[in-house]
């Protein structure tokens, strides 16, 4: 099955208002999924990744209930029918302790 991505409010301007996007093409890792999402909906990539391809400091990506920062970052492999959630840090500093 495809990968489902939950889109936070501020990024829905780039997904025609969709709060949830299903990727039909296969994605082996989080990075693959984000690349796919970015090509479907330009505008998202540069807002969650820096120009060097790293996750922005205060953006968190969850696969299921796991924060990918603790599971291999963007290289985290995706299970079948994965659910990805893009979560902007609430305090703007949730990962400062890293």
């Amino acid at each position, binding site marked *: 099955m495809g990968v489902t991505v939950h889109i936070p409010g*501020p990024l829905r*301007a780039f997904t*025609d208002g969709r709060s949830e996007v299903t990727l039909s093409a296969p994605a082996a890792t989080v990075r693959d999924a984000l690349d796919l999402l970015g090509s479907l909906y330009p*505008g998202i990539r540069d*807002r969650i990744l*820096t*120009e060097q391809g790293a996750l*922005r400091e205060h*953006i968190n990506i969850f696969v299921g209930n796991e924060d990918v920062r603790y599971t291999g970052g963007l290289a985290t492999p995706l299970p079948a029918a994965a659910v990805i959630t893009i979560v902007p840090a609430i305090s703007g500093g949730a990962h400062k302790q890293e």
Partner: protein
Amino acid sequence: MDERAPLIGKNLDHYRILAQIGQGGMGVVYRAHDEVLDRDVAVKVLATGAGQTLGRDHLLREAQAASSLTHPNICTIYQVGKSGDEFYIVMELVDGQPLTALVGAAGLPFEVLARYGVQIADALAHAHDKGTLHRDLKGTNIFVTREGRVKILDFGLATRVGSDLLSEVTRSYAALSTSLVGTLPYMAPELLRGEAASQLSDIWALGVTLYQAACASLPFPGKTGFEISSAILHQAPAPLPASVPPGLAGVILRCLAKEPAQRFQRASEVRSGLETLQGATLTGRETQQPEHRGPLRMVLRGIEHHAVRDGDVLLLVGTTKGAFLLRSTRDRKRWDVAGPYFHGHGVNAMAYDDREGRHRLWLASNSVLWGTFLRSSDDFGKSWTNPAEASIKFPAETGAVLKNIWQISLGGPPQPDVLYCGVEPAALFESRDAGESWSLVRGLFDHPHRPRWMPSNGGLILHTVVPDPGAAGTGRMYVAISAGGVYSSDDGLKSWTARNRGVRVTFMPEKYPEFGQCVHKIALHPARPERLFLQNHWGIYRSDDAGESWRDIANGVPSDFGFPVVIHPHDPDCVFVLPVESDEFRCTPEGHLRVYRTRNAGESWEPMSRGLPQKRAYETVLRDALTADELDPAGLYFGTRSGALYGSRDEGRSWTRILEGLPAIVCVKIAVVRQPRPPRRAPRPARAAAKRSARTQARRRK
């Protein structure tokens, strides 16, 4: 009420009375049909009974006063008539509900309240400008239509300020044994003391109305008239619930200052105050195709945008929490405020590009979450580009990541499509196609000094770009980096040379190194392109040889530490700085907020403080937060870290506070809007220049 029922179904002249819809101060209000114009109207018929004569006179005055008011938020008076014994007023039928009916148990949501409040204040400002007071403003006199438009009804107790009518009405009401005009919970303390109504008592009533709409209770509650009056006169307003945003609470409480002089002095100030609080909702425009390439546009909703006219002056104010646009006519007396644009985003750089017939605002928005984006608006802020891809990016091989854009600069006159951005980490970006595409200036990025530049307090940033001013210029362009120093290029950005000889570095073992200076700002006047002024991290400097060498000119300023330096637009010898005490205590010395001016290129400096706070004003003005317009006399503007914006229309001789309560102000830029079409009358540059020159001479002689 029943006694009026016989009117229903009958005609007053050509108005067929359909139903009673209300009962106001001096009369009963009916829905009626205008059989001539075939439209429904409201007809207010004077009540019979005691005081009828007085009431009639008053009714007529009400109509006279209100009919002079034409405003989208004031119920329009169509006609005054008499049919038999019935006096009546015909007015716009407002299809809506009173504000009080819309306020739920918890008060109106903030955005809604701000939207209504702006309209109410605007209507009041209009009436006051026409010399008309409302005198009985309250939630039940304010209707909101289905479209969300506010209509103020019942200027029923209004009277023209300054005319004989004032005393008449007062007498009339005294005779009616109702010695007070108005509704008690909304009455200002000075009215209770028997003073005359004024614009300021209307502003008080506006404050009570907003308070009530914000939290569904009155600021001065009481069970009896005595308790209410006593609270109005002697007690502080009941605390607003925490759910009311502090900015809104501030506006409301300022309307409710017991001392009239401490209130907002004009309804337009209340409007401005509310406008600045209005949040913007970012909404992507609907797109037809599921895939869209190229820059998207976004419309900022919830903001009343400026209608900008030829000759208007715009102040572009970037703050740590969004941008504000202030508009004024050329007299620069009164400023309308729009914003915040990109609320919650830091706006560290703004610019206005009016070359080649453009009217383009530029802005760099920085979100802690989503990164930094360069955006432009060709309609004075109504819509902005929302680029799918960031236009300013470090190439992959540099490994660098853009943190902030601190400066947006236009290329000189020979390069009308060139733009520059100075960014953090320190680098220069250039666009040769009016901002469509950008590239990193490698000549500077690959400079051998770069690895040894050191971040300053604000980061390692390239904050100033001074382009070659063109034909009269030296062909040299400058940038300033904190802390790297001044660099210049003579060959179209390819190679760069440090230009810091004579600029002292207090914090390094070597006091006069080739580079590494923490320069805060540099400025150049196109009429003297070989000369530059520099505000350093300690030290104010001038170079007379295109940056080859510098000498200290801080002769007599209270501190030579500061951030901005601005040259008078028409006088290259006249320069303004805004010193702060020290690098330890970056606030204006001794709590005096003063601009310092030299009129002899730094040989001597004089403070300019008229209108600026001189007591406990511990302010900081950042490097891009002081600017001048090019009008004559020139206007000067600056914004502070504490969110106050000051302006001078007379080149700094006197100042007024334009606005306060903004987020920390980072940059203040100016745009004088000129239509691209040729002026009707041929300009007379020779004469204008002669006049200017004469003025400059006169000033020098002073």
